[in-house]
């Protein structure tokens, strides 16, 4: 799913261009984890190809179904989603969000990425402590979503 640039196509974003956006957002928001989920072109499965601040490599193996997990819910509804304290309901809720479990996140805010007008991905900012994402932080994340949408929509390929 990752976009691979070519010599003939220098203007299109490479994998590291997209990953840099995650690094940049994590630094600006001072959050523990930032990642991008992308829905497969074929089928409806959703994977996490880009991550910054990860504690392990589990994110690379995680695949969630459309409508499941934080990314699946954000993509299926086309709306942002915030979890401010997952520890409040650790027993059952935690299994619903594998990326949060894998990265030991207690709070996250995720926003859909629109590719050609359709929600095909999600940008996520997360913390390993409970946290209520403020309006300012939400606006900052929206700024990075906009940046990514321009990158992705300019090449129509992820």
């Amino acid at each position, binding site marked *: 799913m990752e976009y691979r640039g070519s010599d003939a196509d220098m203007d299109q974003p490479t994998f590291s261009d997209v990953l840099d956006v995650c690094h940049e957002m994590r630094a600006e928001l001072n959050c523990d984890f930032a990642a991008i989920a992308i829905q497969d072109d074929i089928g*409806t499965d959703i994977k996490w190809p880009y991550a910054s601040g990860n504690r*392990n*490599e*589990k*994110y*690379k*193996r*995680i*695949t*969630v*179904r*459309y*409508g499941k997990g934080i990314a699946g819910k954000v993509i299926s509804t086309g709306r942002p989603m915030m979890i401010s304290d997952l520890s409040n309901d*650790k027993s059952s809720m*935690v*299994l619903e969000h*594998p990326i949060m*479990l*894998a990265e*030991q996140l207690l709070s996250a805010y995720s926003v859909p990425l629109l590719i050609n007008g359709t929600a095909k991905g999600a940008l996520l900012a997360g913390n390993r402590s409970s946290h209520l994402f403020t309006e300012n932080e939400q606006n900052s994340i929206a700024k990075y979503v906009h940046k990514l949408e321009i990158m992705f929509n300019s090449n129509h390929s992820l």
Partner: protein
Amino acid sequence: MEGIPVTKSISSYIIQSQDEELKRIALELHEGVGQTLYSLYTGLQYIEMGIEQPGMKAYLQEMQQTMERTIKEIQMLSVELHPPTLSLGLVSAIKSYVRLYTSTYGIVVSVESIGEEKILPDQNKIAVFRVCQEALINIAKYADIDSASIQLDWREEEIKVVIVDHGQGFNVKKVLKENLSSGLGAMQERMLLAGGTCDIASTQGKGTSILIDMPL
């Protein structure tokens, strides 16, 4: 003392009834609801071929995609309720579940089967499978590790299953006493009711091993 066997048989009966009910619902979802939805899906494809209006065609394609997703959801739900691979044997069912588990939680689990797989009564097969499932879920929830292993050792008169992770570990006595994880007690209870045993050993900072022993 007379109450104990009665309680045990009632608990066994309840668990067996639940398993049978889950199997029935899983089958009904797969064979009934799933097949009906598939008929509707092919019907939509047929209707789409006869429509020329671009707007309606696009709408029908969207409906087909929704239907396709719903069929997949029904299939997954059915598998989660009662894995069809259980009918092919315990090793197949565990391997199949492990594939789903790795793609869900990102934890790689190696499965090794030693000796020739023997036929287990359905009730015991489901009990061992469910306990392995619970152990893996606990690893995903608490161990904070990216790999684990399951070894099934088929002996003449018993099967021994060892589930090992080198994760955070915990104080078993404390957890069982304070009922911090009712799942652990349920695992032991379930094996006892099926005629086997489930021993849990864990060291904080070093990991956990669960030994299931089931007579054949």
